[in-house]
């Protein structure tokens, strides 16, 4: 109840922020600007629209998660709104979880909006509609599947941003989280390097890095989605990948709760 109250207030607060709408607007603009690919052949154009669109969702989703989340708790402390909340019968962890859930709602809304926008653009392509509206809609709905998976991975990013913002400041939190995001996005390449590397020490280091760093790359199922085929075991993959994201977020949020419980506000 208390948590839900705080989550709702957080959602409302975020949706009042101009920066979120600007980021969302730019992302939608990029998704909508697909007509610039008109000089490509229809099949290539579709691949480009999907990949550009999914890429824009990935980057701007992360941008929204970072910028909106990192400022949340420091602003409360700075503007002292946190005093009136925490002097009520609210536990510190309830406050953190409430903030986190609020952000989750914000991210969900953003991703769904971007995903649907991309779906609309794709359905707007003549070559897609040619195979029949319902069939095309069903096959391209996997855009939303990829977007939904990304949602769980952006939760990790937000959990990082919250933790870092409790321990440091908004700006440092953004930089640290961005760093984690970039390293985590390279997970596929790190994994490939393990096989290429000859040095066992390097291999161990890379493997440890791969297992410790949050692997945002897990959210990248774009290739099959773009080319419209379903790899074997995809359902299980999605379950595992989501479980991974949730567990990772759980760790970070636990630490955030403990850190915030000991923080003087």
């Amino acid at each position: 109840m208390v948590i839900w109250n705080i989550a709702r207030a957080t959602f409302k607060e975020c949706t009042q922020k101009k920066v979120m709408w600007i980021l969302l607007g730019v992302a939608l603009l990029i998704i909508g600007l697909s007509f610039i690919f008109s000089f490509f052949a229809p099949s290539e154009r579709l691949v480009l629209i999907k990949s550009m669109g999914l890429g824009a969702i990935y980057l701007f989703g992360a941008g929204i998660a970072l910028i909106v989340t990192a400022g949340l708790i420091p602003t409360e402390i700075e503007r002292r709104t946190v005093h009136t909340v925490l002097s009520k019968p609210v536990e510190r962890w309830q406050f953190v979880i409430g903030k986190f859930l609020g952000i989750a709602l914000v991210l969900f809304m953003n991703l769904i909006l971007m995903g649907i926008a991309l779906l609309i653009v794709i359905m707007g392509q003549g070559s897609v509609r040619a195979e029949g509206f319902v069939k095309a809609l069903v096959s391209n709905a996997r855009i939303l599947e990829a977007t939904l998976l990304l949602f769980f991975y952006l939760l990790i990013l937000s959990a990082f941003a919250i933790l870092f913002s409790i321990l440091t400041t908004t700006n440092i939190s953004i930089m640290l989280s961005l760093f984690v995001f970039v390293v985590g996005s390279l997970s596929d390449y790190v994994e490939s390097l393990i096989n290429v590397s000859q040095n066992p020490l390097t291999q161990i280091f890379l493997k440890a890095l791969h297992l410790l760093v949050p692997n945002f790359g897990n959210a990248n199922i774009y290739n099959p989605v773009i080319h419209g085929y379903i790899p074997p075991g995809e359902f299980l993959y999605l379950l595992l990948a989501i479980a991974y994201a949730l567990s990772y977020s759980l760790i970070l949020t636990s630490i955030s709760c403990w850190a915030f419980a000991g923080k003087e506000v």
Partner: protein
Amino acid sequence: MEAIKTEGLTKHFYEPLRRQTVIAVDNLDLVVEKGEIFGFLGPNGAGKTTTIKMLLGLIFPTSGRAWVLGNPIGDRKTRQKVSYMPENPYFYDYMTGEEVLYFYGGLFGLKGPSLKKKVDELLELVDLSEHRKKQLNGYSRGMLQRIGIAQTLLNDPELLILDEPTSGLDPIAHREIRELLIRLKEQGKTIFLCSHQLSDVEMVCDRVGIMNKGKLVTVGRLEDLLKVGEMEIAVEGLDPSQVEQVEKIASRIYKKDGDFLVYAEGEEKAQEVIDFVRNNGGRIISMVPLRRSLEELFVEIVKEEG
């Protein structure tokens, strides 16, 4: 059971920029009884807000202990019965007046029609009913202050901790708040009032504590603190020779159109003066125990401390 009790409550802040530790609250022993209005005074930086934040569990004491409503500080259930209004309250300015109250009400676990009734009542009480749908970023300072007071009453608290509740209010609102405080006291609530408005404190508080530089310098009943021990006795009908005799008893005398103002130190001396006047055919017009103003006391203490 005391509403607030602290034992050796101490808070040190480390200032990394100046590389020194600042003692914000130093070994504070304080008791606030249930049902009283306690005025908590002190110049800026005396440690009042730090003390309040420790009592509310927002920051943690370096040493010492404290209880609120009989429970150790930091207890969530206690905060159900306490309410707090910070100095210059900032609320979520994207919310409307009623949304803020609904939000805080929710934090107290209130919901449904009872919450709605409470919100309506409180908006009426602080005279903001017509602005209830307006976002707080469109509120004036006084309106924010009134919303701040409204939110302290959501949970029907046993203890109210108010930090500068009357700053920024126009005179009428100011008086209304003062009356509200007295009404709350009549309902048996304890009020811990931090204020610069010494006139407010003087008018409503039962006891005051004065802090300076982290230390509680004075604490006690307001009358006791302000009493200076001198009586001002207005006398008439004495001839000059008799006046000379009175002068020997009194600490000083002012003459005014054949009347005299006699100041006597202590009750015994005062009685002597009275007896002398009556025995010598004079008349006592009035008799007033002399008091300092709170302001005088405050300035005196702060000056003494340097």
